């Protein structure tokens, strides 16, 4: 994974600059998504887009990212089988609609495909959450106890 050369780039729906790689092809930066080879391909190859009917750990990670970012409601059966079924499709469509992720070269409305723009957007939002939580002390000690009497 390419991690160097970070800068700011504005996506269509962004309200602030978020770090992405300078390279021509976007790469994934979140810990959650960047370790999955299938999603890394999705981020750079049209042929590796994730669509309805597909199954695998990469689908579960997309479901997880949608739950983190949008509190998506994914059906239990789709979660246990890690499959891209109707509820995952609805969550992807809602996510893309909310952020106006549309390929204007051939579309006027968003579709329910997780392509380069969508996976990059999901990745950046998850990465922002990771950075926020790390700054807040993720995993650091969080307890104190006393029997105070004086």
């Amino acid at each position, binding site marked *: 994974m390419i991690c160097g050369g970070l800068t700011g780039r504005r996506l269509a729906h962004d309200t602030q600059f978020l770090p992405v790689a300078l390279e021509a092809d976007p790469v994934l930066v979140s810990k959650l998504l960047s370790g999955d080879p299938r999603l890394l391909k999705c981020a750079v190859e049209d042929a590796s887009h994730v669509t309805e009917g597909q199954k695998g750990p990469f689908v579960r990670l997309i479901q997880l990212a949608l739950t983190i970012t949008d509190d998506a409601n994914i059906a239990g059966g789709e979660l246990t089988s890690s499959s891209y079924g109707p509820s995952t499709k609805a969550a992807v469509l809602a996510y893309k609609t909310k952020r106006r992720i549309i390929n204007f070269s051939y579309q006027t409305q968003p579709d329910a495909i997780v392509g380069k723009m969508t996976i990059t957007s999901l990745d950046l939002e998850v990465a922002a959450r990771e950075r926020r939580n790390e700054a807040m002390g993720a995993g650091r*000690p969080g307890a104190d106890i006393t029997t105070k*009497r004086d």
Partner: protein
Amino acid sequence: MVAVVAGSIKFTMPDAGLEGRKPRPDLFINSSHVVCHLSHGFNAGGVPSNEFGSVNDGSIDRAISEAAWRAKAEFRLDTKDKAEIAKFEFGFIQIMFDGQFLMQYAGAKPLLGSLAIQPDFQNTFYLDSNPAHTPWTLPPADREILIDDRVICFTGDHPAFMAKRRTENFHPSFAKSAAIDNHVQLINHSMHFITVLAQFEKATFKVQPLASFRWQLKYQFEVKYVKGAPIIRNASSIKFDPQAKIGDPGFNGDEKKIFESRSGLFFNTVAPGRYRAALQKGSSARTESDTWFLNVPKDFFTAK
């Protein structure tokens, strides 16, 4: 040898509501922390209200301003000779059994997992004192008053626990991501105490129990979030012996050892570090799951 006059010991027990108040277990939640406390002597303004950094040693001292309950014992000595009396100290010694501890956090949805904290230091006996005034529960100025042959001894307590309201679930399925928020869902903590009125002879280091009472505290809370706002189910309890037991306290082996040696692990210096370490990422006390535990209710969390 100074002796306590037989039959002269009079107790004012915590359950009698000394100062017109009784302790009531409760759970305070703000945007970043939770505190199990006993209501009286709890200062909500002292609870950290941001999520940055750690809960440090002493953080809870700003939230707990004083003892939630107090008790006193009054008795007469068989002499008024100040020089003789000065050879002895009187006061309360408290031994604590830190029992079951279970804390759970869960994600807003089953997909976001849950985690449990069950330390391996549960069921430990402590001398519940402070190194500055061991073995007594209180420092000399607060501990005893001597008026001629009359002695009045004081004690009190406020066991409290503070933790972060939210933590991150680092289950391997989540690829070490810090993005998986889990929210406090359950706190169960049971503590047993024996509070002993004692006489200590300075020359011989001999300590003698005069009277005692036992008490138990169970913090037992379940939390749900309705539109993001916490709703607490409180099944906690605090129970005191209705009356103090005069004479032999009926120690078990561990209690007897701590009492007679007047030494042991100090709860307030040992336990905070232990609990902090237990809640930390990577702790052996943490069990992380990539789905909800079976005891997480289906309606655990609805978002704002």
